[in-house]
């Protein structure tokens, strides 16, 4: 069980501001834990032939994509933010949308 970091709001804001590094040591430590938390499926981005990305759950056996977020993303950064929110919610049981204040 991962406990919510005391500076959650700051870390959420830091990630939302810049999904790709460099990150503060505290955010990187949190990302490492979120990204290694066991999941039955893998979050992946599907590149649509017409452009844009969709966030899916990749089931491995058999291989199948299951929608994680129905809306498409125009940028990779936005998709990373959405994946971060999913992982945050799975880990801490609440949405990070308010900056982790709850």
């Amino acid at each position: 069980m991962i406990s919510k970091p005391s500076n959650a709001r700051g870390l959420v804001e830091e990630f939302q501001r810049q999904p790709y590094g460099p990150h503060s040591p505290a955010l990187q430590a949190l990302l490492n834990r979120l990204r290694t938390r066991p999941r039955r499926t893998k979050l992946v981005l599907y590149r649509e032939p017409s452009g844009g990305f969709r966030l899916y759950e990749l089931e491995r056996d058999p291989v199948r994509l299951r929608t994680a977020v129905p809306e498409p993303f125009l940028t990779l950064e936005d998709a990373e933010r959405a994946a971060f929110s999913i992982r945050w919610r799975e880990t801490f049981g609440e949405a990070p949308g308010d900056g982790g204040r709850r």
Partner: protein
Amino acid sequence: MSAPVLLAYCDPFSAEAGEQVRFMVSCEGAGSYDAGLVRLLCCETGPAGPGLREMALPSSLPGRLPARRQHIDIGSYGIVEDVAVDLAKGFTFDALMFPTLLDGRPQAIIGTWRETEAKGACLMLDSRGALALRIGDGAGASAMISTDTPLRERQWIAVAGSFDPVREEVVLIQRPLGDAGFDAPPATVVRTAACRIGVPETSVSLLIAAWTAGHEGERLLTGGHFDGKIERPRLLARPLDAAGIEAFRTGSAPLPAEDGSNPDLAGAWDFSGDMSSDRFPDRSSRQNRGRLINCPTRAVTGHNWTGEFFDWRQAPEQYGAIHFHSDDLGDAGWESDFAFTIPDDLESGVHAVRLSAGTTTFHVPFVVRAARAAPRRDVALLLSTATYWAYANCRERFLSESSDLNQGRLTILDDLDLLLLERRELGLSTYDRHADGSGVVYGTRLRPVLNNRPVTSDITVAYDNFAADLLVVDWLARETSGFDVLTDEDLHRDGLGALSGHRVVVTSTHPEYASKEMRDALDAFLAGGGRLIYLGGNGLYWKIAFHPDTTGIIEVRRAEDGVRAWESEPGEAFHGFTGEYGGLWRRQGRAPNCTLGVGFIAQGFDASAPYQRTEASLDPRARFIFEGVEGSLFGMGGLLAGGAAGLELDCASEALGTPRHALTVASSVGHSNIYHLVPEELNTTNGFTDGTINPQVRSDIVFFETPPDGAVFSVGSIAFAGSLSINGYDNDTARMMGNVLRRFADPEPFAFPHEVDTSVRRRRK
């Protein structure tokens, strides 16, 4: 209705005028497909870059062709044809084995079983993993007798099965070998059972590690593939009882195991022989050699490996096993659908046959190299095809649970990537593990390769190298009046002759894998005054071997350390193809730095970084490099994660062979926490490895002269080529590389600096 599925490959991958390239195509869901010739000029980059550029060329290609589906018979096995033995008079199979995946599938060990006819005999494992003998007469009578005692995974065991038609009896023996450690020792099991089925076979094809599942035209289709090692399979043309089997196994009376004069010994196959080929000898008097299909792993330890020898050439008797896998694939073996003879007027370059059916397209790339007898252009691009084959059909990128952690970003995939994941028969890459957990040692292009294409799901990872290399093609097309293209396969085969006549060789973005022949040729080129622009990162890292007979297959042993998706098993670090020790070039006294001036130091894939010029960039020797370059910081933008220095990084190191007179003219700054030192840099684990805290995590741009009058310029970053086209090629990175290319193509000799002040080389400006 789903879109048609097109899959194809060609052979050879590189050809010159007058030579023929064959194309093997499978098309599902359409009655026909179209084939057209294109010259590939740039990969798909999106609006931030030049975008996909391909030029349709007139050709003799047939245009529209009828569609047909071709299948791939995945899984390795051995086959011995025309074994003259009358199985109806009784027989004994025996072998040593080391099962590695007992997953509920029946698996063949050795036999003549033909599934569709229910005929023949096969020593096998049943669905519980117990030794069994299956017998069928092809007329409706068949039986499978089992010991009912499952084997253990990764335990050597001697197995044998005999059938005596006079006594109407089957005997099975499974006898564990070696030391079980502190595990409870497995028991020897002997099973004798009545069996009244005859096997009317007199001249048979014997299969090892598979059975015959049917035929597609002339092609044999196989099933029951075994996962694990098999050693010393033998066939005796008469039945033995339990005591006789034991004597046969140990070589004691009444039947010396390897007595070549014994007429009953119908085959005693030695997997330690002909190690570098697809053949294996028969030590019986029949001398009926066998052939291996789909590249099972050779040069692996046998049941008697003592741990005292690591080179199979020094103790071949301890390397008598072959590791078969149900997901091995060497050559899809498809029939050719059409061929294309390279016309005299087709320029050297990166080309493709573009296949289309409905909304589906599939590019089959190939290289037109300069004719060996033709004059060479000043500049040659060396496409890193050995690296392409190492990564071919990589699944690890999609399936790894740690990729987000390693790369700091989500995995991106598209429809072709999904097709790869859905079709197991397309095989694995040397970045994958087999189903039994062992590493994939061979990489092959003799099958459809789905990540070798100009439009890829993600050029920001180092898996789809071909697409990223088209960025170099685009740059060279703008900077030169023409250039030749050649491949690693050309370099390996032709040696220095492949490079002679060129003044400048430019590498592609990630030439990670190199054979000894390739490195010798590059070094000889430089020693002869050639100039080398290393326009990539993590180059010349792994030593590889090419298949001695079949072009298009490479071998990789992941020894000792390095950034590895798996590690070689103990005692299995020497290549079977050549007998050479595998692993990192760095561990063989020939680090990449010796040739390139830089070597692999760190990797990460989330964000690329810029370069900062060093004090050494002011050295008069480096003046030509920075003419017109105004800022001290450059490479801030790029198509590959937003900067010039990224993905995989190299730095200079005199300790590893960077020449003492080399100038490090720029170093990257500002890497993220995702970038970490490569493991070979660490003797003791510590927390000082990421790019935000460790100054070793950087890319160095290095220039040095080579005696007598050549030079090397190395950028040490995979992402670098992605920064050239920013702002329509109007940027400092492109200006710098234009300067370097023009100077390197100038016949004016580089003066070798015999007296060098080395004190300023690393200090930053």
